[in-house]
């Protein structure tokens, strides 16, 4: 309805292949970015920033990572939190042990470490698929958390097993307040989302989707299954690793390995199911949904004066029911709903 596409013709492949080919979409995105960069830090309270927006962005990044693996490359993973943990603890150790290492570089190294772990645990994917693979990723989950608890070196011999993330200082500028942290996370997430989108619209992305949709055919036309799957594991784990590092540095501050438990893995899986499997946008929508839902339920429970135990159990039930609901009603999640809505707007007043 709001779209006026007539006259938006493309005279080059570059224009035709851009991420947002429709002018109105580009305007909307720029407006959103402007709000996120300028208005939000000015207007949002520290609580909103640090309890909602920062975790939202970090979870979006983790969900994006999982989506690359599960949504695009079709390999189900239940070990997202493990890769996040690797990212976080690796970054911690790099900063700790290499004096003067820039924080952003440490995050990248943390991500790369996660990528290595991802490749190692992705190896079984060459032989096994489906549930068996899901089980293999569960092994990652248990193994990584076990390592982090059992190897004191990794937590710098902290007696409680808890580490305290070092302050984030980039080029002498300290990211110590919620709004600064928010802007840092926003920048990282925006850049990485862009990179992800680029991969997806290039040959790498097509190779992932080809393997997902029909692996035999993918092999026959020349994609190497091993390389494709491992790359998906590596890239996905890298994203999760960076998200894990941000989770520790920009959100929690002090972290224990148990923060990256199976529950977190499931939460991120839920984000992509609800948000949309195989959609970059879906990762964000899903993260927003899962972050906001407890907040909303809390408000409801509060107003009904329910005891917290009841509220937390209700939350479990609502999560569970929502997952089933989405799988039944809209297996492609919020992103598909968004897409349908957009398509309707583009074709308005026609139904199709």
């Amino acid at each position, binding site marked *: 309805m709001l779209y006026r596409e007539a006259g938006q013709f493309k005279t080059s492949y570059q224009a035709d292949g851009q991420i947002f080919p429709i002018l109105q979409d580009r305007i909307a995105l720029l407006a959103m970015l402007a709000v996120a960069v300028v208005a939000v830090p000015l207007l949002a309270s520290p609580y909103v920033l640090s309890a909602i927006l920062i975790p939202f962005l970090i979870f979006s990044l983790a969900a994006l990572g999982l989506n690359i693996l599960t949504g695009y490359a079709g390999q189900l993973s239940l070990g997202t939190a493990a890769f996040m943990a690797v990212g976080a603890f690796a970054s911690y150790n790099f900063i700790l042990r290499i004096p003067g290492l820039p924080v952003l570089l440490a995050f990248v190294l943390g991500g790369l470490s996660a990528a290595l772990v991802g490749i190692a645990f992705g190896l079984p994917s060459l032989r096994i698929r489906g549930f068996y693979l899901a089980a293999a990723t569960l092994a990652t989950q248990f193994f990584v958390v076990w390592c982090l608890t059992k190897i004191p070196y990794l937590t710098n011999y902290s007696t409680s097993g808890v580490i305290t993330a070092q302050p984030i200082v980039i080029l002498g500028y300290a990211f110590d307040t919620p709004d600064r942290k928010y802007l840092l996370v926003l920048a990282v997430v925006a850049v990485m989302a862009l990179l992800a989108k*680029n991969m997806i619209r*290039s040959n790498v992305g097509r190779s992932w*989707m*080809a393997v997902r*949709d029909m692996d035999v055919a993918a092999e*026959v*036309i*020349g994609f190497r299954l091993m390389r494709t799957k491992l790359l998906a594991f590596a890239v996905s784990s890298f994203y999760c690793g960076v998200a894990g590092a941000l989770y520790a540095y920009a959100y929690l501050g002090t972290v224990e390995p148990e923060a990256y438990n199976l529950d977190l893995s499931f939460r991120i899986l839920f984000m992509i199911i609800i948000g949309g499997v195989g959609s970059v946008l879906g990762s964000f929508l899903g993260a927003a949904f899962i972050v906001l839902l407890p907040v909303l339920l809390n408000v409801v429970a509060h107003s009904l004066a329910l005891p917290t135990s009841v509220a937390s159990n209700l939350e479990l039930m609502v999560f569970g029911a929502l997952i089933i609901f989405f799988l039944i009603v809209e297996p492609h999640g919020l992103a598909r709903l968004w897409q349908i809505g957009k398509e309707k707007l583009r074709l308005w007043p026609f139904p199709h």
Partner: protein
Amino acid sequence: MTEDAQMQMNEPEAHFGAVSTDGRRPTGPVILDLKNISLSFGGVRALTDISFDVRQHEIRAIIGPNGAGKSSMLNVINGVYRPQQGQIAYRGEVRKNMDCHAAAKSGIARTFQNIALFKGMTVLDNIMTGRNLKMKSNFLMQALYWGPARREEIAHRIKAEEIIDFLEIQAIRKTPVGRLPYGLQKRVELGRALAAEPEILLLDEPMAGMNVEEKQDMCRFILDVNDQFGTTIVLIEHDMGVVMDISDRVVVLDYGKKIGDGTPDEVRCNQDVINAYLGVACA
């Protein structure tokens, strides 16, 4: 053309020569030579001691009743299955341990009996996947979508567009293939195989399940591919009319054994073939 016109055609005033009706390229030397191929799955024999060859630029058909081992034969050629016995010489070289990736790399492309398109992707993206072996830039460059990676993507897009133009599927280039009718999906799958610019194209029942008009179109495309790009084509097809029309030579399989090989006319009159498959004697 009327009789009248035909007579006039020979008159010297005509500036144009006769319109060549059979403009096909002449077939070249043997490009693919299969010798004594045997293949079995856990004791079940799928192919038994099969030998035949394929010449450059030719259209070679494989026919036979269901379960004759036709698809297995294609799978052997493009490295999906490895025969227990026999050898395959491709372009004069005996292949060893060829897997399907190596086959793709050496210029063998194929389509599948049950369409094996990537359902979640658009027509254009499906065709682009066919060009993956020709893409050189690494994934980091692709992530940045900058410089050589973008130029490469655009260069291949042009190639993909040429195939879209060739197959006359411009109107659906951005449609997800899952939404297309069967006949168009078959065409897109041909497009994906063509995108690899193959030397040999293996087509597994390219016209199965199509109506007459779609079959005609597909025949035209196959002949055009063969002609325009000089692609050698090996195809499995059940429609005898089509096979006899477009193929240069035909191999007939039955229960994993070769029972006939030759030009369509020879095969049509081969008694074994008639008994096993055609059922009708030739006129």
